[in-house]
């Protein structure tokens, strides 16, 4: 039963779907071209920061925008991956590709465990449980001996990729981060448009109906939760290599809030929204950093404005104008 409907869902039947797919392909190519040329125009470290957060926001959006699950604890996966990656690279002397892999795997495992707990409740409880679990990770990171407490893990070596390419030059590392980012978002795009993604949207829109159609909805939710945590972990591990630092900021609940804000600003449930949202928020933080605590206030104001007046987000509004899904 399920396999028949899955096969039907894969076929892009309508012309609109084909057009949308072509448009998306064109946008992805444009992004790739832009990323190839960007370090000649902009500061590479800033670009890498944007890309890490953009991947983080896209991973979060996979869960919220397509799974309909609001996690308020995504910092846990970003931060765990970043700690594990930093530890394996610095203390165990692993090459960067393995360190990133280890960090990502740790986030995947954590996502699987937390996901299987959180999906036992729905809606508002789900958000509270993910937040509470993430707070547990925060306290663990604060006390565990290997995380370095308030100092974090500093001076993480960037190392040599596959033992060949020296990553200490920012531009070289930038291209690695750009490739990781593109691979991540293309993977998410593929997941969204797979039969699995279609079922996911069905669950998001009407879970009882999906259950009555014979889908084991909890299994789908757990898989998407784990995927989202894994990709968030990939972003966190990469970030640890870029900044050569893993710190408590990455596991704090404010980070979980920031990724929600990025997704909300860019447009929930859109393919390109979270990237735009991440770019906007990171740029804002960079330019307003000298304002100190006011940044929090401004972020809060953006939250309120988005929720009250601008729920579709930047890309959501553009998509509505163009009458095309973006």
């Amino acid at each position, binding site marked *: 039963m399920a396999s028949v409907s899955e096969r039907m869902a894969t076929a892009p039947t309508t012309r609109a779907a084909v057009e949308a797919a072509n448009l998306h392909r064109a946008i992805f190519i444009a992004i790739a071209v832009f990323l190839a040329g960007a370090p000649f125009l902009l500061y590479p470290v800033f670009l890498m920061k944007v890309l890490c957060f953009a991947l983080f926001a896209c991973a979060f959006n996979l869960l919220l925008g397509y799974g309909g699950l609001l996690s308020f604890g995504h910092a846990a996966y970003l931060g765990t991956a970043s700690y594990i990656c930093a530890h394996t690279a610095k203390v165990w002397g692993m090459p960067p590709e393995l360190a990133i892999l280890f960090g990502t795997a740790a986030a995947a495992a954590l996502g699987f465990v937390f996901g299987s707990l959180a999906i036992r409740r729905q809606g508002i409880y789900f958000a509270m449980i993910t937040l509470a679990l993430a707070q547990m990770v925060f306290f663990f990171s604060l006390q565990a001996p290997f995380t370095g407490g308030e100092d974090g893990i500093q001076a993480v070596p960037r190392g040599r990729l596959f033992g060949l390419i020296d990553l200490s030059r920012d531009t070289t590392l930038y291209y690695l981060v750009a490739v990781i980012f593109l691979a991540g978002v293309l993977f998410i795009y593929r997941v969204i448009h797979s039969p699995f993604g279609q079922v996911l949207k069905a669950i998001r829109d009407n879970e009882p109906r999906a259950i009555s159609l014979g889908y084991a909805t909890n299994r789908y939710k757990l898989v998407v939760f784990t995927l989202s945590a894994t990709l968030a972990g990939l972003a966190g591990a990469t970030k640890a290599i870029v900044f050569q630092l893993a710190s408590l900021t990455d596991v704090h609940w404010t980070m979980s809030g920031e990724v929600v804000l990025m997704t909300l600003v860019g447009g929930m449930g859109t393919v390109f929204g979270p990237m735009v949202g991440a770019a906007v928020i990171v740029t804002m933080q960079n330019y307003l950093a000298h304002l100190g605590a006011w940044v929090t206030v401004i972020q809060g104001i953006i939250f309120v404005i988005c929720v*009250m007046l601008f729920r579709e987000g930047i890309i959501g509004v553009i998509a509505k104008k163009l009458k095309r899904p973006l």
Partner: protein
Amino acid sequence: MFELLGIPPQALFGQLLLGLINGSFYAILSLGLAIIFGLLNIINFTHGAQYMMGAFVAWMLLNYAGIGYWWALLLAPVIVGATGIVIDRLFLARLRDLDHLYGLLLTFGLALIIQGLFRNQYGVSGLPYSIPPELAGGRNLGFMFLPNYRGWVVIASLAVCLATWFVIEKTRLGAYLRAATENPTLVQAFGINVPRLITLTYGFGVGLAALAGVLAAPIYSVNPNMGADLIIVVFAVVVIGGMGSILGSIVTGFGLGLIEGLTKVFYPEAAATVIFVVMVVVLLVKPAGLFGRTA
């Protein structure tokens, strides 16, 4: 009686008392969250900030207007509750027909704004608020020394919780409230102004948070961040207890405070996380929560 499992009774009872005090705050805060959730269907993320505002309003009343603790106990909840009513009228009332997650996002944004503003104005080091002279000092109970103010906090919190329970379960107003929680449309059809009831409920829940803030002011220093981490623990308390029952919230709040206190004595490293661990266990054993009605 002189020594329990190698722990001197002074330390044990001291931590238990501290646990009971934390439990009082968990109970009042989770009660407010449950009442708000019942009618508005949103989780009030601003609750921690409003608890902090309660403490700050008490401090401001004393330092700017010379109004002492006892009046603050009455005035601060009213003032903060009034800001809650404004928040509800300005923002939350416009989100009623939308997905309830928007309410969560909005209140989260408001919490960021409020905490940021107080941090800019007062810094993060914390301001002192002294214990009222009537409750200064303490008494020797034989097995431990009980500071009067701490005893007062536990008794006052219990009284507030029980009074809230009484109003909701035993009065006509409470009956309206419970009916509106079950079926707002039907209650409106009987001529009850449900939108106003909802707004007042939000104000009341916020007032409870502020009251907890005033009670906390002399124990913890008055600090812009005092509610931020606390509220996450209270969320865990709410998940453990479930929001279906008022008495359930009270029992869970005090109980978890005690568990936390005991953990501080026997295994201090885990004191910060024990409530989250309890939450995990409850989710595994009884996903609906200890007093929850639906899964």
